[in-house]
């Protein structure tokens, strides 16, 4: 296997004011979107399961920032943020949450199953660990077609217990496939904490045991995540095979809208809230004189406007006609 010289430029996050404000803006867009989703759930506009990413935004924002348009993303059921940051229009995501025909999947998938061909966003997988083998295969296709792209695969700490996690890591390394594995380790799989589900709680060690280069990253620090993702990307793009990031983070809200959170202490949640990735970047930028009140106001009001607009778009959308119920089960071909 050839090893291209690492692209040092690609490895460095661009710590310009403009870029840092951009990272902040991205996290705030996701946060405000999801806060609105929770309200809309209470108003019964959004139904089914709703899993919000509040508290974990730095992971998706930091990683996705480093991807190129031709790269590929595979995510879980907690993927609104990933879709929005990847560039799926917020309008189409919100309409999907409503189940409207204007949604990014015609409303067929809903919150847990966002897909978007235009941005190479391959779901939205609600079977824990179900996305890992898909990512391996997408990367295999890139490799076989001679495309030098990255497939970024997001999954939770819970997925680490599934056989598909281990089988996928082994296969990706065995075949030296260009997969970026990102474990969003938020310490809980529903109500089961990491130490109750893993005999070895250092998840990156499992990746190392399959010979993948693996790093632990502070998942509450968007700049650290971006830097790690750039290192990983450079390695993968140079043809050396997969890379593994364990991003340590925390989910501030309940697992889903049905979760009374009997399994964790309020104090624990409060402690983690002090590391809120948005607050953290905001105060750092303020301290360094990079961010002023007017900037934050502008970011906030832009985010609110964008969310408002997406809600109006979803409200104005329509329901797919019942006659179309059995469409999209097989490829529709025009009659010869």
């Amino acid at each position, binding site marked *: 296997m050839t090893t291209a010289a690492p692209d040092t430029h690609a490895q460095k996050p661009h710590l310009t004011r403009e870029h840092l404000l951009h990272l902040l803006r991205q996290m705030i867009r996701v946060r405000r979107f999801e806060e609105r989703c929770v309200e809309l759930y209470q108003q019964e506009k959004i*139904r*089914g*399961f709703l899993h919000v990413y509040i508290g974990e935004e730095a992971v998706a924002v930091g990683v996705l920032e480093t991807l190129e348009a031709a790269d590929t993303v595979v995510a879980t059921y907690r993927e609104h943020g990933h879709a929005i940051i990847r560039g799926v229009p917020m309008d189409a995501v919100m309409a999907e949450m409503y*189940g*409207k025909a204007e949604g990014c999947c015609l*409303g*067929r*998938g*809903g919150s*847990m*199953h966002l897909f978007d061909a235009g941005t190479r966003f391959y779901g939205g*997988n*609600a*079977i*824990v*660990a*179900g996305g890992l083998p898909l990512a391996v295969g997408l990367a295999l296709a890139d490799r076989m077609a001679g495309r030098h792209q990255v497939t970024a695969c997001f999954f939770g700490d*819970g*997925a680490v*217990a*599934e*056989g598909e996690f281990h089988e996928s890591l082994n296969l990706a390394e065995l075949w030296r496939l260009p997969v970026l594995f990102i474990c969003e380790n938020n310490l809980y*799989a*529903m*109500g*089961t904490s990491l130490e*109750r*589900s*893993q005999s070895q709680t250092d998840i990156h060690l499992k990746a190392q045991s399959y010979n993948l280069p693996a790093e632990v990253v502070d998942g509450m620090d968007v700049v650290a995540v971006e830097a790690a993702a750039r290192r990983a990307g450079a390695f993968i793009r140079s043809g050396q095979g997969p890379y593994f990031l364990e991003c340590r983070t925390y989910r501030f809200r309940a697992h889903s809208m049905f*979760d*009374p959170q*009997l*399994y964790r202490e309020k104090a624990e949640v409060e402690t983690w809230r002090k590391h809120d990735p948005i607050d953290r970047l905001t105060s750092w930028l303020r301290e360094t004189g990079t961010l002023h009140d007017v900037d934050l106001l502008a970011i906030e009001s832009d985010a609110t406007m964008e969310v408002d607009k997406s809600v109006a778009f979803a409200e104005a959308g329509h*329901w*797919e006609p*019942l006659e179309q*119920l*059995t469409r999209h*089960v097989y490829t529709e071909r025009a009659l010869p």
Partner: protein
Amino acid sequence: MTVQTAAAPKSGVVGNVVQTTYREALHDAIREALLKDQRVFLMGEDVGRYGGCYAVSRGLLDEFGPDRIRDTPLSESAFVGAGIGAALGGMRPIVEIMTVNFSLLALDQIVNNAATIRHMSGGQFNVPVVIRIASGAGRQLAAQHSHSLENWYAHVPGLKVVAPATVEDARYMLWTALEDPDPVIIFEHVMLYNVTGILSADGGPVDIGKAVIRRPGRDVTLIAYGGTLGKTLDAAETLEADGIAAEVIDLRSLRPLDTGTILRSVSRTRRAVIVDEGWRTGSLAAEISAIIMEDAFWDLDAPVSRVCTAEVPIPYPRHLEQAALPQPAAIVAAARATLGR
């Protein structure tokens, strides 16, 4: 049957009957089994600290401790297989799988081990495991959480498959299943957990192999199970208003099928409609239809009819989800059609 959307009411004794929910009935059944037999334990994802994803096991961890209320990692194949192994080793495990779609990760253990070990070993070993699985649609959980794959399991010799549709069966089927020397899979339809019903306070073990006539009638036999029983009884009400007396059979056991009850009823009513939340193609309804055709063909006055789920993964939006599923109106129409009305 009343489906309640509000919080489930607590059970309370009224005379010598109890008003309870399906969820509470399951909870009480598990609790009773744990008290009665030290070999019984409950194992599955989030059954302990979280209280069960459908809150069935809430409180049991405090009462019985983490040895007997075992939270497992997300490892369906391993913990279902471990349940099978523990059963081989003399325990009486109750293994919970959150949703039938996730049971597919454990299908290998269930089909290749649980169902075969008695046979492969020439009868030396048996697998007294009970596996509880939630299934079915109606909660807008879309295409990876809503399916009815009971028939996949009912296809397999070596397994027994039951589907409690009433509070009574939710309460009393478990113990019979645990006493069975062979693997029993219990399917709990997700729309039933909040359903309330009346339970005799001194009820005892039930025969899980027998179908039950939930409503007698002479004009047409409606055959249902699990989540479709309520809709079928609603349809029977509507038919009665039109002067059609529908008999409603609750299958209860999907493997073995109680063909005697089915055939006797159909021979009397001379017409049958089978209601099944599985997809039509290769459905349990297809199997029952074939049995009726083979053994009651000359008694029939009309072709056997099926009301099944449309051939589509369950879509998220409510209107499409509901349109995909068997509904009372379709059952009524199918029943009428068998009478030429």
